[in-house]
């Protein structure tokens, strides 16, 4: 036979949510597992990690057909077992076994260990003779490191680790090709856990077993898995070779998970370190409802187009004057002057489905700080750039939280980090935006709202026509922002200039400033 031992395509499991059952009719369905695909070759082992509620256990149970999948396909050894009846499944089960989570409840208290291990051997007709089956059970018990002397005992006479060995013996007794092991070491002490992991590793090698190892504990998964799949909310967020995923995680959530594991190493920074991106993760733009301010021109306009291209469900395109139209009917024009409290309140009310807020609107007046303040330029910059953005965040943070979380993107500028002559008050307002963004990130960290600060260098728009080159194209800047959001970069420095400055900030501050000043 060629091809993978187990092939899963678009597997979805939906279960009725009884807590939200209406008075009449059926309760609504919730997707517990959503569009999972995987291939597992002979002898390979796959680790599935995720936190509680990620759907990893349900997925495992679907794979051994304890739960019937709602849609998708499962092929095992070339046979489609998605909708196979128990009669069809029975000969397959000999090759497809499971080790269960709770060694207490997975062993029938009224049967001896020998009977428990011999049960699948008999029922799956590996042996038809009772005596032969019990003999095979003894061998499996020996192999599981328990010794066949335990065959006559009852489960309640065993310790937790011993019970889990019985579970392993039962699973290997039919000499299967694939074992699904669900959280099998979570309740055990470290020294017992290490023994069980070592045992599984040996069995894997000796028997040429394929293994699907489900756990919430990344370190445990690392011990056994060649391949790793990280799950969140029923979906896969990242998958790949174990070494690649653990050493170079690509997805922000994976990084967050890894960073949260306390290694037995002293690291005084660990506790205080921002959580990977401090809650800044934005799985995807697809399906989000986004409000972008300042969309009449420049970066704002580009944001709208790229968000649509990235699959946003709806984009509120806010302009100071309102109106405007767009070819795409997902775009909803909004009148919103961010210096107007009534406008903001109205927007928060009308756009109650927003999950992502992009605070792009801003102004700049080039003026010397100590010279006469032309038409209150300093105050106006502060009012729009800082207070406007802050008030938008205030108004929309509860909206986004109520919608189950999302993101806020505040457009600051690299000027927040480096001051330029002639632009002192603009720099001050951008620095205020940047500091404020750091502040609300901490406040929103636990509420599923990712907060990003964007610090671009000079962008080639009509607002910066006075700036000397090099200026980055708006489309590149926005593309980098969207990529940065999905990669979980809390502070996004789009464009070479910004990166250069941020990279230089740490190293050679005076040099950078000199270089920057050269631009002006």
């Amino acid at each position, binding site marked *: 036979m060629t091809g993978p031992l187990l092939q899963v395509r678009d597997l979805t499991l939906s279960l009725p949510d009884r*807590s939200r*059952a*209406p*008075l009449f009719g059926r309760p609504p369905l919730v997707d517990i597992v959503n569009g999972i695909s995987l291939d597992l070759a002979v002898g390979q082992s796959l680790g599935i990690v995720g936190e509680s509620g990620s759907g990893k256990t349900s997925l495992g149970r679907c794979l051994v057909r304890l739960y019937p999948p709602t849609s998708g396909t499962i092929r095992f050894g070339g046979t489609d077992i998605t909708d196979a009846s128990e009669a069809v499944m029975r000969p397959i089960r000999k090759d497809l076994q499971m080790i269960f989570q709770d060694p207490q409840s997975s062993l029938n208290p009224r049967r001896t260990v020998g009977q428990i291990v011999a049960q699948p051997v008999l029922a799956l007709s590996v042996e038809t003779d009772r005596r032969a089956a019990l003999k095979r059970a003894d061998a499996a018990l020996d192999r599981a490191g328990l010794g066949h002397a335990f065959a006559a005992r009852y489960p309640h006479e065993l310790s937790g680790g011993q019970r889990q060995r019985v579970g392993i013996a039962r699973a290997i007794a039919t000499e299967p090709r694939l074992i699904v092991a669900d959280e099998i070491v979570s309740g055990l002490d470290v020294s017992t856990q290490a023994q069980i992991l070592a045992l599984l590793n040996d069995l894997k090698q000796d028997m040429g077993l394929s293994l699907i190892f489900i756990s919430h504990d990344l370190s445990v998964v690392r011990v056994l898995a060649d391949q790793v799949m990280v799950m969140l909310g029923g979906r896969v967020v990242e998958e790949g070779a174990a070494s690649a995923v653990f050493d170079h995680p690509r997805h922000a959530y994976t990084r967050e998970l890894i960073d949260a594991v306390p290694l037995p190493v002293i690291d005084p920074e660990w506790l205080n370190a921002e959580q990977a991106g401090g809650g800044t993760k934005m799985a995807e733009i697809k399906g989000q409802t986004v409000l972008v301010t300042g969309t009449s021109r420049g970066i704002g306009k580009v944001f709208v187009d790229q968000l649509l291209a990235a699959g946003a469900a709806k984009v509120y395109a806010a302009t100071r004057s309102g109106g405007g139209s767009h070819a795409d009917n997902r775009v909803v024009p909004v009148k919103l002057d961010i210096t107007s409290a009534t406008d903001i309140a109205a927007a928060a009310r009308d756009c109650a489905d927003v999950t992502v807020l992009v605070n792009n609107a801003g102004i700049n007046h080039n003026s010397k700080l100590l010279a006469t303040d032309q038409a209150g330029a300093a105050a106006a910059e502060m009012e729009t750039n800082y207070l406007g953005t802050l008030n938008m965040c205030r108004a929309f943070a509860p909206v986004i939280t109520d919608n189950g979380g999302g993101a806020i993107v505040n457009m600051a500028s690299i000027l927040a980090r480096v001051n330029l002559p002639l632009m002192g008050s603009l720099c001050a307002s951008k620095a205020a935006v940047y500091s404020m963004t750091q502040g609300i990130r901490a406040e929103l960290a636990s509420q599923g709202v990712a907060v990003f600060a964007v610090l671009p260098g000079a962008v080639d728009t009509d607002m910066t026509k006075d700036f000397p080159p090099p200026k980055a194209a708006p489309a590149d800047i926005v593309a980098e922002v969207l990529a940065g959001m999905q990669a979980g970069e809390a502070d996004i420095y789009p464009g070479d200039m910004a990166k250069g400055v941020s990279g230089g900030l740490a190293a050679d501050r005076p040099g950078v400033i000199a270089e920057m000043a050269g631009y002006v």
Partner: protein
Amino acid sequence: MNRSMLLRRLLQAIPTLFGVSVVVFVLVRVVPGNPIAMMLPPGATAADMERLRVAYGLDGSIVEQYVIWLGQALTGAFGTSISLRQDVLELVLGRLPATLELALFATVLAVTIGVLATMLGSLYRGRWPETLIDTINGFTLAVPDFIWALALILLFGVVLPILPISGRINPRLGTEFLTGFYLLEALLTGRFTVLGDLLRHIIMPSIALALPLAAIITRVLKNSLAEAMVQDYVMIARVKGFSRWRIIWQEALRNAAIPALTLTGVQFTFLVGGTVLVEKIFSYPGIGNMAIDAVTNRDLPLIQGLILCFAVIFITVNLLVDLSYALLNPRLRS
């Protein structure tokens, strides 16, 4: 768990009521004998009978008959009692207050005894008073109200004759009552001699009914209290430096009361069922006593009226228990 769940529970009572009515209908119809015959006075002619058959739709199919019967039952038209020659509904409603009074009195007694025994047992946990309470409780749990009633009569009616062994009130007092709730009325109108006599009559039957229920309350409440006492939040309360009494009262009892209440509700229906026999034994003029007489006299109209009455009480009590469960449990309230 939410309001719609409660509403669903309310709606569930409808099919149950429907099922109850079907069972009663079938019971009455399968009786050997003619249902028309029991509606007519003795000496009616065959023609009278045929007229009634048509009038009551008894010549139609069984489903038609059921629909007609249900319509009558819903309007309270259960016909005339054969043995007592009075309207069934009037008879039942006339006797119902006596039974309700007895059942409620017994329930209050049972809850009081049960809670007291529980508190006492929990206070002296692991010492001899707890063992004593457990032993007595084990005994009480096994003995049915029927035996208690007879034992009480033997004890306080014969060996130590201090209480009347039958009836609800001494007829020689000659008091008139406006309602059927004698006890309540006597209390409200301040007729204390009458009240005393009523209490002397009600005490034995209500104790007989209360003891098995009290035993069950004690066991469930004590178990759930013991369960609550090992929860983390109780440990925290101990670590907060509170006294044992305060912990039992403030932390544990309320959570322990929830399972106890559910069970008390179910058992209360048993208590109501128990009135049938206890009323008979004490010749107490309630619907239970009446029901046994109706059965012995094969008074079918009266039987169906009484049985439906009991069923309605049972279903109502179960609903009330579910509602009060929701009141006690914040998970259901929000």
